[in-house]
């Protein structure tokens, strides 16, 4: 827990440094936003919904804005909502859409005519590292044991995780690839969500599981699942990262906000400034802490580049997995 808090603080401090200049530099445009349309391309209750509503709560609490319109259009990893956001909000400076890594993968796998590159990147807000776990009774004590078996007999290791082509599946593919195993050889068992996947692990139905750290956290603490590696750069919660164990894979299941397509640079900068202000306020910091979200803030052009790279990397691995052409 201490590690996580320290990381949070470090992240927040970094964000403060990055954001300091902006709100002061362009107060005029920032003031132009008097109300915010928050478009959530997912049904109420999920991670994107929680992010959208937390943005509203934090901005209200810190007195940044008081007028919000929240709209949920769920379905297909955001691919139902995305075209609607693009169509309805084109050129509208005060509209934001929540999105993230899931949307990147969904756009590629479904060969959608519209992708996350069609909207204007504003900021990456949070990220969650994935964790590789095995049941407590598993013979695999370390990531090395698991990888050794994977190399020896790729199909004998069954991996439980979320839907095919999602973040969990992508990580399994990358781990296989980094160890010289054809990603298509990995026995990936897709479950409809974290709950059923956890149940399969607790019941010793599968060899290993991949999901967001938070999803497995309580089972790990209770000693029912053993965490072997996390997908962040460095170790988290005393779990060593894949990179530290010689597997060169880093993956964040990130969530961020996007602006409408066709907005002016000034409008985009105003939204970036607003998000900068929010992440530096006390309410958002408190939200990160109670929710256990990792604040990996990145905004403006840097975020734009990150999204482009993420799309390119994801396309490659989905092709390797045989899910995209």
């Amino acid at each position, binding site marked *: 827990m201490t590690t996580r808090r320290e990381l949070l603080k470090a992240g927040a401090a970094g964000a403060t440094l990055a954001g300091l200049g902006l709100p002061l530099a362009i107060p005029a445009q920032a003031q132009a936003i008097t109300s915010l349309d928050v478009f959530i391309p997912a049904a109420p209750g999920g991670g994107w919904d929680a992010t959208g509503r937390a943005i509203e709560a934090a901005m209200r609490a810190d007195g940044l804005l008081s007028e919000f319109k929240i709209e949920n259009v769920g379905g297909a990893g955001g691919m139902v909502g995305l075209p609607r956001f693009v169509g309805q909000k084109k050129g509208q400076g005060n509209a934001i859409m929540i999105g993230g890594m899931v949307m990147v993968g969904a756009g590629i*796998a479904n060969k959608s005519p519209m992708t996350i590159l069609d909207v204007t990147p504003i900021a990456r807000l949070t990220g969650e590292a994935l964790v590789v776990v095995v049941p407590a009774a598993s013979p695999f004590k370390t990531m090395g044991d698991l990888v050794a078996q994977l190399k020896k007999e790729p199909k004998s290791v069954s991996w439980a995780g979320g839907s095919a082509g999602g973040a969990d599946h992508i990580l399994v593919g990358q781990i296989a690839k980094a160890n010289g195993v054809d990603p298509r050889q990995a026995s990936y068992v897709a479950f409809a969500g974290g*709950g059923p996947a956890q149940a399969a692990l607790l019941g010793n139905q599968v060899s290993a599981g991949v999901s967001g750290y938070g999803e497995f956290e309580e089972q790990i603490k209770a000693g029912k699942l053993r965490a072997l590696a996390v997908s962040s750069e460095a170790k988290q919660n005393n779990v060593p990262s894949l990179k530290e164990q010689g597997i060169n894979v880093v993956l964040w299941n990130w969530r961020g906000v996007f602006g409408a397509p066709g907005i002016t640079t000034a409008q985009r900068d105003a939204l970036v400034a607003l998000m900068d202000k929010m992440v530096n306020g006390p309410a958002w910091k408190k939200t990160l802490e109670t929710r256990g979200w990792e604040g990996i803030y990145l905004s403006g052009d840097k975020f734009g580049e990150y999204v482009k790279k993420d799309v390119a990397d994801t396309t490659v691995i989905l092709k390797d997995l045989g899910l995209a052409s």
Partner: protein
Amino acid sequence: MDTLGLLMQGFANALTPMNLLWALAGVTVGTAIGVLPGLGPGLTIALLLPITYKVDPTSAFILFAGIYYGAMYGGSTTSILINTPGESATIITAMEGHKMAKKGRAGAALATAAVGSFVAGTFGTLGITFLAQPVVELALKFGPAEYFSLMILCFVTVSAVLGSSALRGLTALAIGLFFGMIGIDLQSGQPRFTFGILELLDGINVLIVAVGLFAVGETLHLATQKKVDEEVIDIKGPVGMTKEDWKRSWKPWLRGTAFGFPIGAMPAGGAEIPTFLSYYTEKKLSKNPEEFGHGAIEGVAGPEAANNASAAGVLVPMLTLGLPTSATAAIMLSAFQSYGINPGPQLLATQGQLVWTLIASLFIGNVMLLVLNLPLVGLWVKILKIPQPLLYGGILVFATIGTYGISRSVVDLVLLYIVGFMGFMMRRFDFPTSPVIIGMILGPMAEQEFRRAMTISNGDLMIFVQKPLSLALLILAAVAVLAPLVWRVVKRPAPQAA
């Protein structure tokens, strides 16, 4: 402290006036949203999540639990009265219950549903209190192979709704299997039968098909009748249940509970499967199976109890392991998280007071729901006094609004009417509609579990007979199919001798 002591303490917390008020608000809202098609408990709780910023956790969970149980009660009402199921778990109730209503027995159907829900809810909550640990251990023994064998057993139950022609029944089942295939395949991430329509990527909601086939189909059918029956349905007999009804209901209630609770506790069990199993069992055990399909009270009592008991069962893995196994449970868990409470194996240890108060409030909510719903029966049946053309016009409006409410998608509305027209044609040419629904629910589950099992076993089919639980379920399925045939052969000589 022992379980009973902890539970008593929970009651002490739940019985404060403020918490009682939250429970009352929860069950009232829950009943209302259960009655309305399209607005399920999951969505309602999700929409109410922002109150977690203002209200203390105990009150919030008492409210949410009330909504959850209440929706299960309310869901049966629209199914029985206007053949428009509000939840997929009440689809079976609609089949038999609406037939009862058409025979003027709506009061009895509603009453047996309400009392059955109470019985199941109470036994289910007792199960959470005393049996949570062993039940969850059994539930975790179910892996993909076991689930697939359970699905095979469930497919046997389809025979109970096939109707007079097996060919027509199986055709309907195949249509259901096809509907179930539409959307992104979970195991490969590839879209199937979506024809480039983005809205179809997540598949078709089974409720839209149910409402389309049952409500819209029936309305169209009525509209084409030359002579529309202007007379209202007579309400025969007393509004509540007769002595005979009680006698025929109590065993199905208990059997339904016995199906619902453990299957609800299974991570991939769900609420629909126990209703199928209960319906099949009641039809097989009934002294007058010919009544089934024409309004048999057992066919309402059993599945309704199974539905409610499974709702209690879902809470077992949630409270003992922090595992959300239904959409509603997942949303309740995210409510825990917005309080900074981490639901997991330690929940009972770290948040014992909250959990026991929640369980106590489930008992209280159940009593409230019975008190709330039984008098409402008299009110609800009055809906049927509306002349049929107006009533069915209203049903059409209701079905349309409800469908739009599920996803706010125009594509779904178009689908509703396509399916509705299909339902009309099926009725016109005497095809049973229920197998469509069963195929649509069981098909994708069976397929996914089969492929999971195959991935795990590296394509070795022996996995289904090597696992003892899976083998036992397959044997049960075989017995269910073969026993009636063998029985007929054994029995045949007897009448000849006489």
